């Protein structure tokens, strides 16, 4: 997998402000010693009124990966708003989401590439 061509993209209108990415990034960066909000490369900005959450990433995308090749922040993101992919793929996904949203209001809350389809790309042995 060539990580240079991939970028992190955040659909901030779907970010629930849960801080999973921030906390788990700190966990990996801090050598698994514990959880600390400021240890990682991600910082979540929130207006604290529930109107806006934006995770800010200061990261080159080089860290340890799980078995499907995702960084831990993307693996742990529950809504699917944080993805690590190339630009064309992201644009395709974003368009499919915009379309889905027009038909079904539940896509205000979740993304079609995570729900209800298999919520991650199938592993090699599953294909």
């Amino acid at each position, binding site marked *: 997998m060539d990580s240079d061509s991939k970028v992190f993209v955040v659909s901030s*209108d*779907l*970010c*629930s*402000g*849960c*801080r*999973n990415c921030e*906390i*788990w990034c700190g*966990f990996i960066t*801090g*050598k*698994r*010693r*514990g*959880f*600390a*909000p*400021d*240890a990682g490369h991600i910082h979540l*900005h*929130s207006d*604290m*009124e*529930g*109107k806006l*959450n934006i995770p800010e990433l200061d990261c080159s995308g080089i860290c340890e990966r799980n078995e499907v090749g995702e960084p831990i922040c993307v693996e*742990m993101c*529950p*809504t*699917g708003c944080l993805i690590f992919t190339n630009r064309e793929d992201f644009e395709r996904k974003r368009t499919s989401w915009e379309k889905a949203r027009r038909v079904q*209001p*539940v896509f*205000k*809350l*979740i993304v079609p590439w*995570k*729900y*209800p389809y*298999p*919520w991650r790309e199938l592993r090699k042995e599953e294909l």
Partner: protein
Amino acid sequence: MTWHGWTGTILRVDLAAGKVTKEELSRTMTRDFIGCRGLNTAYLYSEVGPEIGPFDPENKLIFGAGPLEGTPIGMGRVSILTKHPNRFLGEGGAGGHWAAELKFAGYDVIILENKAASPVWLLIVDDQVELLDAAWLWGKDTKEKHKLIRAKTGISGIHVASIGPAGENLVANAKVQFTLDHSGGKGCGTIMGDKKLAAIAVKGSGIVSLADGTRFLETYRKFRQTFDLKSTKDLFVPSWSFNSANMLLELFNENGWVHAHNGQRGFFEPMLNDVEYLDRYVVRPESSFCCPFPACGRRYEIKEGLFAGTGGDEREVGFAQAAPIVGIASYPHVIKFRDMCNRAGLDEDQAMYSIAWAMECYERGIISRKDTDGLELRFGKADEFLTMTERIIQRKGFGDVLAKGVDEAARLVGRGSERYTLSIKGKEIERMPQRNGYQMALALAVCECGPDHTRWYPPYPPNPKSIPSDMELPFDPYSAFQTRSVEDKGRLVKWLYDSRAIVESLPSCVYMIRGLLGIDMSLWLDLYNSCTGEEGDVQEFLKIGTRIVNLERAYIVREGFRREHDTLPRRMLEDPIVEHGIPPIGENLSVMLDQYYEIRGWDQKTAIPKEETLRNLGLQIVADDLKQRGLLA
């Protein structure tokens, strides 16, 4: 001593003297009671005896975060504990981010003592802990308080726990309100108001250390698989992932789970529609700290029309489930009501059930316009409902009567109105079905802190096919979950209480108990051990839960609560649900209580834990204490 999980520090704040002291946590206490809810109870038991009244300065208010708080298992859960104005345990949990910040700042527990002479607020930024004057905050609503504190401190990520006008005016069950509309602790807001503590603001930048990070990550991945839509075996995972309880409205109506018109009916028409809610009012997801559900919490807003601009954040409880109680079928009114309660720190169940009681009394002719200051309090009158809510918050006229709680209000009104109160131990019930869910009826009746669903949630089984055949359960999963039979309910409710006591003490959110997590504690134990470095086994772990529940029972026994207080509203015991043909509970309750006390090792006549039971759980000190007070033979 190095601590993993716990930070090892307690903050003790003397509000009268303005003095803050830091104490070391005791290793034996954390072993026996873990943290959060369990540890809080241990502190309250040893420090606030029955000779201290709830409004005495000696009563304490305890905010606790457990060892797994600050890790992604914690979900920002905090447990708040005090002696409730009705003298039972005033315990309540809230989610959000506040407790995680408290752990990052380096504290496990805050114990607040005495009363301040004038309003104060507590600021905690890592090592810096200050008690400051709060004259400029007093009288403001909770959302304003949070905004003002953010502006004053200049820290954008600061999280605040505060009380609103309801707490300041000592409304009976006022709650503590956290940033982003998380709230909890019915009655704790009242005591906080009595102590003249306006707010506690927390920001931390430290670390919650783990004993074995790699093992923790592996176990956490297994935990997350429970919520994976592709492989989940739990019916409720999809609904909680998208639209929480709102999705189940039709199910509620079909099964008679709503308390329509103060519990007189089990069916409500026109029921609010969850798709309309999602379509018109929901804006975006908004979660607690590290919640694995994408949209258990949602931001909602009224964009146009009546009450335009009103909005907030919603979790777990469907609005629409609540509206039938007072007979309303209008989203704008329910959203406005919720916003008023959140701003004022008023308990929604108190407002809802006490106004519903007043409406029933009005329709039955027990009270009239003269009593209600000219308001026509009938079911379905949405504007009158909102006006009455405002009067409860401000304690004006008839609102002052309802602000005392529905039992006290019925005592003041008299004329047979006591028959229609929906309350247990003097506290209004929550929206939980009872006549058509005997496990829930029993669990509500025996609860040590008034009716509280988080102590035994969820009361339904996982998919039977997902239960491994070799798994040993303390109850029979087929008969125990039968909703209208008394069979096996004692053993089931004991299990629910003991296991959920552990989950709330770690802490984690009881809405996370999905799939096998509710009947198999080994994954929770793995998370606990890998975080804290403890090495207990499952038996030892479950014993902690039993110990916590027994200590809580000993506490309310000391306050004078006995078997006769473990009961249900008369409506549930005597009236059927006509539309669904569901009979009242009647004598079944006492059969289930006998089962429950017996399996617990408590005296069946009095519900006092036997000495042997307490001794086996390592609570000899408690047994001696009860003996000294003449409560044990």
